[in-house]
């Protein structure tokens, strides 16, 4: 009970966006999907920025003198960097808030943003190595950023696995929160240790081929940033709502289980009648 109130109050304060599902559906039937006005707006914005991203990014922006067409991967690569780090940072903040406020809201939001972070981290790695092939001649460079991103990807896959662990729900949320904090610390450690290692031996890979971001590049990149941000926000809201519904379902199941548990009757019949004798001990046909 208390928990619920905290959730609502916390939600009232800050996260209006997650609550209102004023669909077109009538009041009586209630919403039939996780769509709401806010997600419709974000979805529309995403599509609205996607079209100019493809138009300006792929068609209008001129190829780079060295990297030619492949430079256009930048318009999806750099935005996915932004979205990945922001998502994982959001997981960190939500984990801290969960441990202090103990409200399920923050736990679910941490889980939702971590999953979206992992998704965009995958896109980040993919676009990065596709960009690397024409630029460096190889798909993979032992560059600090690449390496730490790969480690981060695996680390948050582990985080998501912990969220699916088979232990008591509350303990699981608490452990996931601890892991959400420690994982972000680890990302920093991994990044700086590899950075230092490479920094001592060779220059950063990226600085060797400087690209001036201006003109159409900047314009397209801006649309890339907007598109990825809107999509990520849209995804986090939807994912959060799915998690919330799963949580509701879990609680309903628990209610049901409590009711069932209460009506349990010890109906173990310890006598064996003739039919059963034949069935159990009768042997062959």
């Amino acid at each position, binding site marked *: *009970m*208390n*928990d*619920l109130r*905290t959730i609502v109050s916390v939600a009232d304060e800050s996260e209006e966006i997650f609550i209102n599902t004023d669909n077109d559906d009538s009041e009586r039937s209630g919403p039939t999907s996780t769509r709401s006005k806010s997600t419709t707006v974000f979805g529309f914005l995403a599509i609205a920025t996607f079209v100019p991203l493809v138009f300006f990014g792929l068609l209008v922006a001129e190829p780079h003198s060295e990297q030619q067409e492949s430079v256009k991967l930048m318009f999806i690569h750099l935005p996915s960097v932004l979205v990945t780090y922001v998502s994982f940072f959001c997981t960190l903040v939500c984990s801290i808030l969960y441990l202090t406020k*103990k409200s*399920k809201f923050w736990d679910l939001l941490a889980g939702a943003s971590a999953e979206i972070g992992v998704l965009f981290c995958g896109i980040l790695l993919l676009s990065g190595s596709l960009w690397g092939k024409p630029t460096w001649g190889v798909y993979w460079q032992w560059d600090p950023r690449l390496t730490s991103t790969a480690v981060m990807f695996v680390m948050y896959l582990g985080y998501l696995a912990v969220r699916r662990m*088979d*232990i*008591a*729900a*509350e303990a699981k949320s608490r452990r996931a929160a601890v892991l959400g904090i420690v994982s972000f610390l680890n990302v920093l450690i991994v990044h700086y240790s590899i950075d230092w290692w490479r920094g001592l031996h060779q220059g950063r890979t990226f600085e060797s081929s400087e690209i001036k971001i201006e003109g159409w590049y900047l314009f397209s990149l801006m649309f890339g940033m907007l598109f990825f941000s809107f999509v990520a926000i849209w995804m986090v809201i939807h994912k959060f709502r799915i998690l919330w519904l799963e949580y509701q379902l*879990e*609680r309903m199941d*628990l*209610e049901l*289980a*409590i*009711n069932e*548990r*209460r*009506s*349990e*009757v*010890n*109906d*173990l*019949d*310890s*006598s064996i009648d003739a039919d059963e004798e034949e069935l159990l001990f009768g042997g062959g046909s």
Partner: protein
Amino acid sequence: MAQASEDNLNSTDAIINLQDAIALIDNYPALSGMNFRLEQGETVHIKGPNGAGKTTLLSLMAGLLPLHSGQGQVLDNDLSDLGDRRRIRRLTGLLSHESSLYDELTVFGNLKFWCSANKVEHEIIDPIMDRLGLSGRLRNLKVSSLSAGQRRRTSLAVIVCRRPRLWLLDEPYSGLDEAGQNLVDAFVQTAVTFGASVVFASHDSDRAKKLASRTVEMQGGRLKTQKLDSGSHKTRDYIPIESGEPLPDGTHSKGGNAND
């Protein structure tokens, strides 16, 4: 906590007071609204079929489990408060169905470790080992080479060393021979005369009846309020009053997840 314990002290000297307690084991409501009261100096026998929630009840009263909903005080500490639960643990001795012993250490090594861990003087170990028949050959034997009954006696020795105010025994007789079972009874009775209170779960009804001052029957994770006719197998036709009863609104089941 302070307020709850004051109320408790003023009203009665109940050692344990559970009201509509629901506790979960891995998201399963092993206790589904348990009411239980234990007065100072009582020895209560909990009986019930397998899976009735006896073990969970003992873990809950030992302070090892959080309350999902409902209320509970044990030894003037509130079960819904983590700090209080920690205090309860120190005052309570739980003999669980697991041995809580290190298989690779000797009987004496185990006792020594658990006495140090519980901040108990080591002088107490030898007399207790003598008393439980663990001295001599067994003393320096690894626990892994002990029989089930000998292990049980070693676990019991650890509980006795702790001098708990509340004894929680889960199937204390299991694996023990006649002499061992008598010894359990003797320990429990002596502990009670020294001011301890005891709750134990057992399927050995005859023995339990002699030891206990009161018997409580559990079924489906809560008290079985109405007794069945003994010796009848026709329980299928019998529908307990509770089963048809709707959940009291907003008290147990809607209580969200347990936050402390």
